């Protein structure tokens, strides 16, 4: 069996192997977060993919949709396929990634994600939608999954004293990726647009190449610490405390523990609530405050939510290093419950400021949920297989990605069909989201240390 130490492929790609990424004396660990950010800032683009939807409905008609042009409903599948393949690739490549190390994983992610754009460009050029599904959806989705989990274990190993802050920094990049991609995509489409071309092909090629290079830079910078390395002044705790273990649980064994499923539920419910409203934020703000929030202002509101989503990832993950992961999630669920329940009230009193403020706080906790989970997993299952376990847990994200928007959309439709005014149609949705967070609170409350029978033997940990 190939082990982490033995995994050296040789040849021209040997520089990608784990053995070639071991840091030499003098390497600063603060170079690893920017390496991780190189990947996450790129793959976070997925949150901004919707900016291509409308232009891609006019590839033939240019100024308006022609009968042979793609429909919005068909284009919506590109994002969904990408998110499904994000979850699947993260789940299935976690163990491989753990073996080959972060550089090869980041390199693979760069090829997949950048390559996905290039294949999609060909699909747009030939007007073959299946090529776009295959390119951005399947190939790009695999790049998303591999890229998302690749730096997590490396960062936790470099920052055993502050694992939440370290992973929070990287995963913050995923939230920030959309802030860059959205204006960049619009600018590039304007640049490549001609009277007979909407500019999507050129934009896809350019973005694919930019992302590939940017992610490769991360792959070049990243290093793993030498065996036995620890930060100055850091002494690993000899005894476990509360939910923080000093042992390690194998990835296959982790799936047999109730803790894995409790955390799966915790992540799924936190994401379901957040993603549901994030997808509807623009329409919701305009319908709750008719005549007071324009479409342009609503797009500003969505951007603001993305910003707080990003900031929350760093803030909450860093805070969790001091107050504990379980307590952090308790805050997410308790405060989130109160805020979701209070959102309809902001509509009743007509306060845009409170509405925006409540949603901004909610979004920090949505992002914080993503960013704090790797450190939570490290606390509960140990460091050895945290990357692979994190990969498996991300299937909760894929599930929530379907569940959240479906809940919000269908409940809203049902309300409107029942004659409820549009301005009030979100009230029941908000109360249901608050209910989901209550269930999440209970699941998190039930978290307890993993039974010792699931722990690995110390001699097997480094094999």
């Amino acid at each position, binding site marked *: 069996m190939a082990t982490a130490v033995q995994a050296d492929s040789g040849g021209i790609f040997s520089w990608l192997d784990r053995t070639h990424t071991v840091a030499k004396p003098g390497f600063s660990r603060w170079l690893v977060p920017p*390496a991780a950010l190189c990947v996450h800032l790129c793959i976070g683009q997925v949150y901004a993919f919707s900016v291509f939807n409308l232009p891609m409905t006019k590839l033939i008609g240019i100024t308006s949709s022609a009968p042979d042009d793609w429909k919005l409903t068909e284009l919506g599948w590109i994002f969904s396929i990408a998110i499904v393949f994000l979850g699947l690739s993260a789940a299935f490549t976690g163990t491989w990634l753990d073996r080959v190390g972060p550089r090869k994983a980041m390199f693979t992610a760069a090829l997949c994600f950048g390559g996905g754009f290039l294949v999609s460009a060909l699909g747009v050029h030939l007007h073959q939608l299946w090529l776009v599904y295959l390119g951005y959806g399947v190939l790009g989705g695999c790049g998303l999954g591999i890229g998302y989990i690749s730096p997590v274990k490396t960062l936790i190993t470099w920052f055993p004293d502050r694992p939440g802050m370290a992973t929070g920094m990287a995963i913050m990049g995923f939230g920030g990726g959309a802030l860059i991609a959205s204006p960049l995509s619009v600018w590039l489409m304007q640049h490549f647009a001609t009277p007979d071309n909407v500019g999507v092909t050129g934009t896809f090629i350019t973005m694919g190449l930019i992302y590939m290079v940017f992610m490769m830079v991360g792959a070049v910078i990243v290093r793993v610490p030498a*065996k036995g390395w620890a930060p100055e002044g850091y002494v690993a705790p000899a005894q476990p405390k509360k939910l923080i273990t000093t042992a390690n649980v194998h990835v296959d064994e982790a799936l047999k523990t109730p803790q894995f499923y409790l955390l799966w539920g915790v992540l799924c419910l936190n994401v379901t609530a957040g993603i549901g409203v994030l997808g509807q934020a623009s329409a919701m703000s305009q319908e709750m405050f008719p005549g007071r*929030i324009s479409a342009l202002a609503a797009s500003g509101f969505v*951007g603001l939510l993305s910003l707080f989503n990003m900031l929350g990832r760093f803030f909450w993950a860093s805070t969790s290093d001091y107050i504990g992961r379980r307590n952090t999630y308790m805050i997410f669920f308790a405060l989130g419950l109160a805020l979701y329940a209070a959102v309809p009230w902001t509509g009743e009193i007509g306060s845009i400021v409170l509405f925006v403020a409540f949603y901004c706080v909610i979004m920090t906790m949505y992002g914080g949920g993503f960013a704090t989970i790797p450190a939570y997993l490290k606390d509960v299952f140990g460091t050895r297989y945290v990357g692979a376990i994190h990969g498996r847990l991300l299937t909760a994200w894929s599930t929530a990605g379907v569940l959240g928007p479906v809940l919000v959309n269908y409940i809203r439709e049902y309300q409107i069909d029942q004659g409820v005014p549009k301005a009030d149609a979100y009230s029941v949705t908000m109360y249901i989201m608050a209910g989901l967070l209550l269930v999440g609170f209970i699941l998190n409350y039930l978290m307890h240390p993993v039974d010792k029978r699931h722990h690995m033997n110390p001699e097997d940990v480094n094999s």
Partner: protein
Amino acid sequence: MTKTIHHEDVSGANTIKLALAWTFVGIPLLWGVYHTLTNAVLLFK
């Protein structure tokens, strides 16, 4: 038992590498934040 190794790096070369790496990721991120805030101002006008 594995001996614990500590490296505390204070060299000038590393400071330059750190500055370059953080600038490389920081500039596009700040550009994105600037654009977002510019658009968000419309919400309160």
